[in-house]
């Protein structure tokens, strides 16, 4: 069944239409890869859907409800979470805090002024468990500012994941890390995602990664959807091969 | 009737001085993204230097000479600025704003006392300049010619500044830097030089404000702090970093204050600050400001 559906979603920057009346759907339970060359509008689409940008026109329906007008934090409540291509962390807090914060927020505990955070044992246990799933347990008490780029990418995802979203956008989870690190990171992420049966949309350049990890692929080009299908279908799709794969592999 | 005209003149008088102070403040912020809490003291500094120099020269100097001495205060303030920027402020551009505010706050305290150290606690005057020009008859009232001169200088300064920023090559560099410091330096602009120049000009304006004020009034301690808060109102109304804004804001403040004094004395000051608040609410970046 259709978890997210946008209709004629449009976002302009001046003349350029970053997102050009896109009808984009995500099905419950799938891991979807969003591909396309730079400037194809992938990130813009995610930004609009996740609420970072306001669309110029079109609607976003999530679980049968129109969320187009919702503020970011309300979308989070509704169950749409995302990670960031350029990592967005709380650098002066520990990894544990970074993750725990998502849980506090999710459980609506952040409005507690006069209770010690540390007394919410369950939250910390869960936070620690999540860190472990992402292989970050060892640095749990370090400051997020002080860990390696690879770990930062994972933590960024972990923060989003800790919200237990129904739909998780992962914006280039392996960008900016060495090719050696790419595979391990993707393994961890996809493992966690599948294990927890989270519907995920992954923006990715690296086609090997894409074909290996996704159930379905949506290819974007110049702000609109070029093609959509299983990895095999996409491999065989003319338009895609000419417009994207060639470019990507060249 | 003539009283109304005079009220108007007063408003303009006040506005032109405020414009010089606030314009400098705004220019500096626009280019360097620094709010200089000690800016008011540079205004005071200009006033003291001019008063002092005129006082020294007074003995037998030709009146014309005295008038030529007027801008000395401005130059002095500019020099002071040229010293302060590289020594005190430069280390802070990469630091958080609170540090910049604090260091200029400390500077404010230091300058306040330095002026007392040099010129003593007593007010310094240069009234001879104010008196020599006599007064102009307006209807059945008279108005000091000197005040008209100040208004003139204010207008001229505004014109010059405008031409400088929009018509000269340096103006282009200045604006480029204020738009995007990184790109400017990428394009080979020597940002450090631009900064010191901008800061110096800002201080020059403040100093000029003080220099032209002092003959009509006098240089007193604490004049800087009072001026600063009003300059804030001006730049907030006009928009931090916008010269047009500073001009416009100065006019508003000048007029409101002038009629505040006669019409609603109790809330004369409060109204000014409230204007600032309202503007910030309606247009956070001020009436002429670029939205940050």
């Amino acid at each position, binding site marked *: 069944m259709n978890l997210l559906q946008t209709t004629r979603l449009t976002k302009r920057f001046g003349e350029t239409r970053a997102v050009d009346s896109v009808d984009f759907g995500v099905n419950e339970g799938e891991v979807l890869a969003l591909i396309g060359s730079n400037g194809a509008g992938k990130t813009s689409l995610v930004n609009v859907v996740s609420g970072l940008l306001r669309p110029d026109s079109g609607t976003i329906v999530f679980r049968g409800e129109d969320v187009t007008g919702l503020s970011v934090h309300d979308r989070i409540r509704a169950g749409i979470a995302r990670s960031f291509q350029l990592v967005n962390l709380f650098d002066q807090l520990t990894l544990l805090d970074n993750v725990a914060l998502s849980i506090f927020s999710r459980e609506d505990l952040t409005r507690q002024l006069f209770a010690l955070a540390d007394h919410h044992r369950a939250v910390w246990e869960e936070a620690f468990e999540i860190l472990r799933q992402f292989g970050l347990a060892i640095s749990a008490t370090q400051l997020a500012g002080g860990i390696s780029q690879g770990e930062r990418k994972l933590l960024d995802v972990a923060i989003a994941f800790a919200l237990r979203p129904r739909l998780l956008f992962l914006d280039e989870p392996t960008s900016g890390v060495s090719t050696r690190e790419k595979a391990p990171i993707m393994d961890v992420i996809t493992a966690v995602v599948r294990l927890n049966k989270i519907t995920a949309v992954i923006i990715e350049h690296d086609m090997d990664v894409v074909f290996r990890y996704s159930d379905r692929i949506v290819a974007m080009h110049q702000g609109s959807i070029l093609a959509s299908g299983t990895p095999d279908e996409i491999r065989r799709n003319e338009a895609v091969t000419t417009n994207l794969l060639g470019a990507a592999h060249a | 009737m003539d*009283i109304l005209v*005079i*009220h108007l003149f*007063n408003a303009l*008088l*006040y506005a032109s001085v405020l414009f010089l102070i606030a314009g400098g403040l705004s220019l500096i912020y626009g280019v360097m993204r620094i709010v200089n809490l000690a800016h008011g003291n540079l205004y005071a500094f200009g006033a003291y230097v001019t008063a002092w120099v005129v006082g020294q020269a007074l003995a037998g100097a030709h009146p014309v000479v005295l008038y030529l001495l007027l801008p000395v205060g401005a130059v002095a303030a500019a020099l002071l600025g040229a010293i302060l920027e590289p020594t005190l402020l430069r280390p802070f551009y990469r630091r958080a704003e609170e540090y910049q505010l604090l260091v200029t706050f400390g500077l404010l305290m230091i300058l306040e006392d330095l002026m*007392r150290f040099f010129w*003593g*606690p*007593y*007010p310094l*005057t240069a*009234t001879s300049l*104010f*008196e020599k020009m*006599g*007064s102009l008859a307006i209807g059945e*009232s*008279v*108005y*000091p010619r*000197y*005040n008209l001169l100040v208004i003139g200088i204010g207008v001229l300064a505004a014109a010059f500044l405008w031409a400088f920023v929009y018509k000269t090559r340096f103006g282009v560099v200045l604006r480029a830097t204020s738009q995007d410091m990184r790109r400017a330096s990428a394009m080979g602009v020597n940002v450090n030089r631009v900064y010191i120049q901008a800061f110096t000009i800002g201080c020059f304006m403040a100093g000029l404000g003080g220099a032209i*004020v002092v003959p*009509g*009034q*006098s240089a*007193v*301690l*604490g*004049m800087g702090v*009072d001026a600063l808060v009003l300059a804030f109102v001006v730049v907030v109304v006009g928009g931090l970093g916008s010269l047009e804004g500073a001009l416009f804001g100065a006019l508003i403040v000048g007029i409101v*204050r*002038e009629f505040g*004094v*006669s019409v609603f*004395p109790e809330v004369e000051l409060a109204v000014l600050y409230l204007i600032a608040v309202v503007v910030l609410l309606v247009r956070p970046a001020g009436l002429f400001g670029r939205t940050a």
Partner: protein
Amino acid sequence: MKGPVTRRDLLAKLGVTAAATLGASAAGFGVAGIARAQEKPKGTIPDKPFRIGHMTFFTGPGAVLGEPMHKGNLLAAEEINAQGGLLGKRKIEILKADEAAGLDANVKEMRRLRLSEKIDMFMGITSSGNTPALGPAAEELKLLTIFIDGCTDNLFDKAVPNPRYIFRVTNIQSADGSTCALGVAQTWPDVKKVAHIHPDYAYGRNCFEHFSIVSKKLLPKAQNVSEAWPKLFSTDFTSHITKTLGAKPDLLVTSVWGGDYISFYKQALQHGLFDKMRVATTLALGVAPHAIGKDHPEGVLAGVHANYHFSYPPGNRWPLNKTFVEKYKAKFNEYPNFQAEGAYTATHILRTAVEKANKLAGGWPDDEAIISQIEGMMIAGPGGYVYIRPDNHQGYKDAITGFSKNVPEYPFPILDPARIITIPIRNITAPPGWPKGDPTSTYTWIDQTWPTVKQA
């Protein structure tokens, strides 16, 4: 006073006289003089120095009043130390403290001086905003104190209604406004439209109130046509002057003083204000006599805080003043103002009290003994007789004001010797036992006891 009274009657009753004879109110009091030879003190006197904490404005615009105050204190201390100190033994030591640090800091500083510097006495204070805070603080510290100025009625009306340790030597503030009004009533009885420009703080308000109440009694026809309240220590009066001119009054009353007044009169000159109306001031020549230029118009009612101008009493009739002015001029190369006179007198009040107390009991007198000597003391100072009223510890000296005049002897205007106006102070201040009132006891006293003159 009952029944219809003419202005002339009332002025006469109040003893408002031009070029008055001295010491009218001195009669019947044991008068202590200032410069007289030291007698041998009784008993043994410790020779540890007598420390006076002197707090006044050493910084900021208020320093035009503060510095002379300190100088007056210094001069007197020197005279006394030259004779070996208090009772020939205890040299006076003066610790400076800056009043400009702000009220909060001033209260702290007074405590520090007493509790950790162990001062024996506190003197000074210029701002009438500060005494109401420091008075109670001094009482709390049981600290013998003579305030020189800070002369707000509020201090002994409300802040410290029953003072024990604190005194004040210069005339009570309300005398300023009243004296100014009486001067006007006597000189320009025909004023109809009055405009006011006062600094927006205690002193300005007080002058406005007392001028108003007195003129209500003596100038019932006069009405208030304009008020302007510039910030204290602001030097831009353009707007306020314009407002005043716009109201077309025939008299301007102003209590603007110090550097403010200099800026004011220069600007007023250029606006032709002095040609359009008469001007009555409360403090024009009072602050720094030598700072006023010869361009200052003559014939302005030029107040001296109802206290003292160095040109009066004239030296030939009052040698004390002659010697004081000469010494002061020689030492500081400027002319003393009322603050200097006040501090000088206050220091000698201390000396006199200590000597008298010593005569009675011998040895170094304790504070109680000194206090009981100061209470009710009548002493001749440079400015004339000062009487310290025992009930409220307030110093009273005959009020004086006059008219600005340029004379060849001085490079600045002085009070026209021919037209000095003096008023016996007790005629314009609430008598002992008068209930504390609002805004001031003197105000309610004038309001309730003075008749309103019938227009003659």
